[in-house]
């Protein structure tokens, strides 16, 4: 691995200043994507700004009708949080199924969202719950945040500080996971909050997470698995790789969507 300068700021403002000073610097949160990338020399930042000391970014709290999760909360923090389990159990379950225990102890929600891996789980939760991503500069609705595979609306030096999830009436996540990596071959997050019905799909689309409009319309008539009988999104636009081709992924999206609705409605 190439040498780099290492910084461990103690607050967000210091972190932002360090990023501004080092054009080529990268943020390290849990490091579970960045370190593997650096080992492969796919990234060689001149400096790392480690957010590990920012305990202010680790809180999880219920605020009005939302659950607000600090960007440095680990997957394990979210999976074991009483606040999340009570308000949005589907989100706790999603976190519990990321990677393995050691990975969940390091990986963070902010890191996952900022990376926007097309097979990551959290982007589906953000889009599927209509979350707001809060940075040190502004608030970004999930729809505007995820702009394509590994691409987000974040500007240079912008730091995610929190994610705010509106509490739904019903929500659940179902994923068909790659048994080795445990990433989603297809993952679907569904939610219902009043008349706002959302179906967000990760792992399958060739341009990252997306909302499946046709399924949302069908569920708006009746929020039940049966409403999605026989439905799957078009294979065009789905990803093909060694694990699954586009048609199979499209099929899986339909199956996962029905399972997610079944879980959300307790069927």
């Amino acid at each position, binding site marked *: 691995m190439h040498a780099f300068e290492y910084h461990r700021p103690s607050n967000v403002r210091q972190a932002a200043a360090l990023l501004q000073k080092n054009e080529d610097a990268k943020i390290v949160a849990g490091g579970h994507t960045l370190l593997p990338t650096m080992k492969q020399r796919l990234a060689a930042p001149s400096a*790392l700004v480690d957010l590990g000391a920012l305990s202010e970014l680790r809180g999880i709290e219920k605020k009005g009708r939302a659950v607000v999760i600090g960007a440095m909360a680990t997957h394990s923090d979210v999976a074991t949080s009483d606040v999340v389990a009570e308000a949005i159990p589907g989100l706790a379950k999603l976190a519990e199924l990321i990677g393995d225990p050691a*990975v969940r*102890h390091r990986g963070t929600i902010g890191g996952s969202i900022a990376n926007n891996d097309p097979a990551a789980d959290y982007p589906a939760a953000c889009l599927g719950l209509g979350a707001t991503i809060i940075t040190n500069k502004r608030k970004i609705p999930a729809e505007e945040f995820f702009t394509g595979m590994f691409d987000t609306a974040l500007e240079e030096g912008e730091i995610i500080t929190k994610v705010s999830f509106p509490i739904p009436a019903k929500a659940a996540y179902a994923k068909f996971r790659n048994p080795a990596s445990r990433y989603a071959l297809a993952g679907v997050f569904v939610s219902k909050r009043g008349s706002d019905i959302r179906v967000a799909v990760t792992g399958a689309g060739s341009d990252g997470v997306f909302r499946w409009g046709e399924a949302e319309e069908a569920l708006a008539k009746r929020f039940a698995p049966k409403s999605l009988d026989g439905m799957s999104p078009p294979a065009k636009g789905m990803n093909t790789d060694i694990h699954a081709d586009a048609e199979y992924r499209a099929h899986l999206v339909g199956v996962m969507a029905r399972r997610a609705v079944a879980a959300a409605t307790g069927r």
Partner: protein
Amino acid sequence: MADKMHLKLTINGEHLETLCEPRELLIHVLRERFNITGPHIGCETSHCGACTVDLDGKSVKACTLFAAQAQGATITTVEGLASPEGMHVLQEMFREHHGLQCGYCTPGMITRAWRLLQENPDPTEEEVRFGMAGNLCRCTGYQNIVKAILAAAAIMNGRDATADDAVKTPEEVA
């Protein structure tokens, strides 16, 4: 080359210090600077768990952490589990139940199992398998590893590990 940093850690109850570069992984600092060679390097890609250590009360993969990120932390490795009176009950049970063949994954397995039994002191077989999912073994097929952990849990909960009903099944929990 970046400047070296002054790293201070508490490892297996001992305060240790060293100079290291920011790019050094925790596993390399443990093995090469402190000569703590219990944690192994298997895949070095966060998959296999041979490098699992306990960091501030959590199982982590020491290959996917810069030592710098662990500054000031309290670390336990497999070397820290036995006491002067003898091996830890998990170590005894891995021996008793042949929970290893080549032994390469064993330090990570035992260190993770040690934390698992603190998170969940009386797990079912299913919970053991879920909790050990980050540790791979290419020899045993896992049967005896799971058996060893369940036997250790039974003993730690005051049951006779050789009794037929010592091990909890998922049905009993439900």
